[in-house]
């Protein structure tokens, strides 16, 4: 193909990790996402390690989702060793997880995505003219961080979450602090949703697609054993290899997911598409008033859905903090030393699957499938369609097309480090 024009960006800014994008415009239009982040081979790093050490290594896959990369392997290990954690542990882990959701979404929206909407290179310069907006973002980020600091010991790589429970339980007065702060930031969360009401989604990326999400154990939660798809199909996590496959492209250190052989989407939009009936409170009200902003066929919708989720998770954290009375209890120690276990949770960017095999307390096999690896092919299609739509509609400014292509990619909130943790074939 003769290439007439080319858009090339070796290093996409304002995303987690290192990736580039190339769009070639000729008789047809092609796009590819080059994933240049180096491979780190986590499944080899965790092999032959005791499960406690392995669970401490996993969060290093990605800082933005280090809580999911701790809590999901813990769940897989506990499933393998038949460890039943207490109700209190389950509640605290959910709060911890929700705290991560709030922080991750707030960072993504305010630091990475919103500067595009307002025409800035970064949040730092944007903050000068939109100080109130940026304060909302920072307040939400700080709230999520506080929840993770109190329950997980820190916001990045939480060492306090361990197999069978926690090293140390939070104090009741710290839970009170979480509750108080949650009520303080809820307005900032609602304002975040309202921000996106001023923007229409570019129709060039409209395309029917499958959305996969967890079937939560309770509420609009992040834990479950089954995965539901928007085509009506559902399957249990231990069957994940039958329905989710990954292939390799020569321009990507990350593997690329397919559901039943087709590109698909996971993340906030996919969760809302599949589980919107489970939303409660203000998030539900906001969704009902602005349901036209949830467009299953348009990935730009993901930003609105992330904002909606911030509202939901803050209200949920407040509710849990209201009800929980911390009582002293010990970690549950496993009786078994061998087993095979699976776990799936909803990380901020979508489904996260862990599989482990343990022999005599040692990890013999670990497989991880991350959300970004799952949605990479779909993201590539949307990037291409954005470029094609603009080009065919008379836009000839390559820089402008490039910017819009970047916005498509950012809408997915890709986590490149996650995608290149690298799993076994």
């Amino acid at each position, binding site marked *: 193909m003769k290439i007439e024009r080319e858009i090339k960006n070796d290093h*996409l*800014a*304002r995303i*987690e*990790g*290192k990736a580039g994008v190339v769009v070639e415009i000729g008789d047809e239009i092609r796009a590819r996402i*080059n994933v*240049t*982040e*180096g*491979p*780190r*081979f*986590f*499944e*080899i*790093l965790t092999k*032959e*390690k*005791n499960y406690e*050490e392995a669970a*401490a*290594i996993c*969060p*290093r*896959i*990605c*800082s*933005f989702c*280090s809580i999911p990369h701790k809590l999901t392997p813990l769940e897989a290990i506990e499933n393998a060793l038949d460890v039943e954690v207490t109700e209190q542990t389950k509640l605290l882990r959910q709060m911890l997880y929700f705290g991560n959701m709030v922080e991750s979404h707030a*960072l993504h929206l305010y*630091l990475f995505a919103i*500067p595009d909407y307002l025409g800035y*290179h*970064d949040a*730092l310069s944007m*903050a000068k003219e939109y100080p109130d907006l*940026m304060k909302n973002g*920072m307040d939400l980020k*700080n709230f999520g961080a506080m929840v993770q600091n109190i329950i997980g*010991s*820190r916001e*990045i*790589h939480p*060492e*306090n979450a361990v197999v069978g429970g*926690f*090293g*140390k339980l939070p104090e009741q007065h710290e839970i009170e602090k979480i509750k108080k702060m949650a009520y303080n930031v809820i307005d900032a969360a609602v304002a975040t949703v309202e921000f996106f009401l001023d923007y229409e989604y570019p129709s060039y990326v409209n395309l029917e697609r499958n959305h996969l999400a967890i079937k939560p154990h309770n509420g609009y939660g992040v834990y479950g054993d089954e995965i539901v798809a928007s085509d009506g199909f559902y399957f249990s996590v231990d069957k994940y290899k039958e329905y989710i496959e990954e292939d*390799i492209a*020569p*321009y*990507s*250190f990350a593997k690329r997911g397919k559901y039943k052989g087709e590109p698909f989407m996971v993340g906030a939009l996919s969760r809302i598409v599949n589980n919107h009936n489970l939303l409660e409170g203000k998030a539900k009200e906001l969704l009902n008033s602005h349901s036209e902003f949830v467009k299953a066929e348009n990935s730009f919708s993901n930003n609105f859905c992330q904002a909606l989720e911030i509202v939901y998770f803050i209200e949920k954290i407040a509710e849990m903090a209201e009800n929980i009375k911390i009582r002293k209890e010990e970690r549950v120690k496993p009786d078994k030393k061998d087993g095979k276990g699976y776990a799936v949770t909803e990380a901020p960017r979508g489904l996260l699957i862990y599989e482990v095999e343990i022999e005599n307390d040692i990890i013999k096999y670990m497989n991880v499938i991350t959300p970004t690896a799952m949605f990479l092919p779909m993201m590539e299609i949307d990037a291409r369609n954005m470029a094609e739509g603009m080009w065919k509609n008379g836009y000839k400014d390559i820089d402008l097309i490039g910017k819009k292509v*970047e916005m498509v990619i950012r809408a997915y909130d890709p986590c490149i*480090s996650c995608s290149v943790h*690298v*799993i*076994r*074939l």
Partner: protein
Amino acid sequence: MKLRIGIHGLTSCYGCQLRMASVRELLEVAENFEIAYWYMVSSKGEISHVDIAFVEGSVSTAKDEEELKKIRENADVLVAVGSCAIYGGVQGMLFGKEYEEIFKEVYGDNKIEFEGRIGEPLKKYVKVDYNLPGCPPEEEEIIYYLATFAIGSYPEEKDYPVCTECRRKGYPCVLIEKNEPCLGPLTVAGCDARCPGYNVACIGCRGPLPHGIAWFDSLAKTFKEKGMSKEYIKARMEIFGKQYEKMDEMIEKVFEDED
């Protein structure tokens, strides 16, 4: 005049940059510097001359090496940020293995057009002026480093172990009192012994003590006396210490003596 700084990530979890981007009062802190490049946060700027460059991550691809060299050539001072940049990070555990074999185990016979490597610390490729340790670094340390540079001074690196801070905090000793494999004695302080404070044994995430004073042999001997196997001790100590000079040797020695 404001100092011109650059912040960059090589192969990593991006946690050090995230920690830098999420310090309290980030906007006020940023006011004191001119940020020449920070891809994670801004789409403006590119690698160019700076007074101080902060680099996180390990060198794990040919592209990483190329970028690091360009950063070094254009920086008066280069700071290695975090365990990956200082010791190779958890991916540095593969040191000593053949990249091609590991690649094959994961990607099969597929070809990828970018050149990968076993992760190594920055100092293997360029001169590093300062280390800012942590996985990720603590907020106070980030502010301390930035502040000392901003007033025309230089940061002093800690050279004492986590135990020092743990004693000062008055936490029960996880190693002696609970017989857990705490790596506090080997690990550079700065975290205020957070994990022992949570009843969790230190995993060594901040990396071994600088200047060759991390005594893997003494601690391995203590672990051995508590009944831990050589394999277990190695597997735990190598997570953040694999590329520390003589780590393997020091652990082997403890077991050879008794054989």
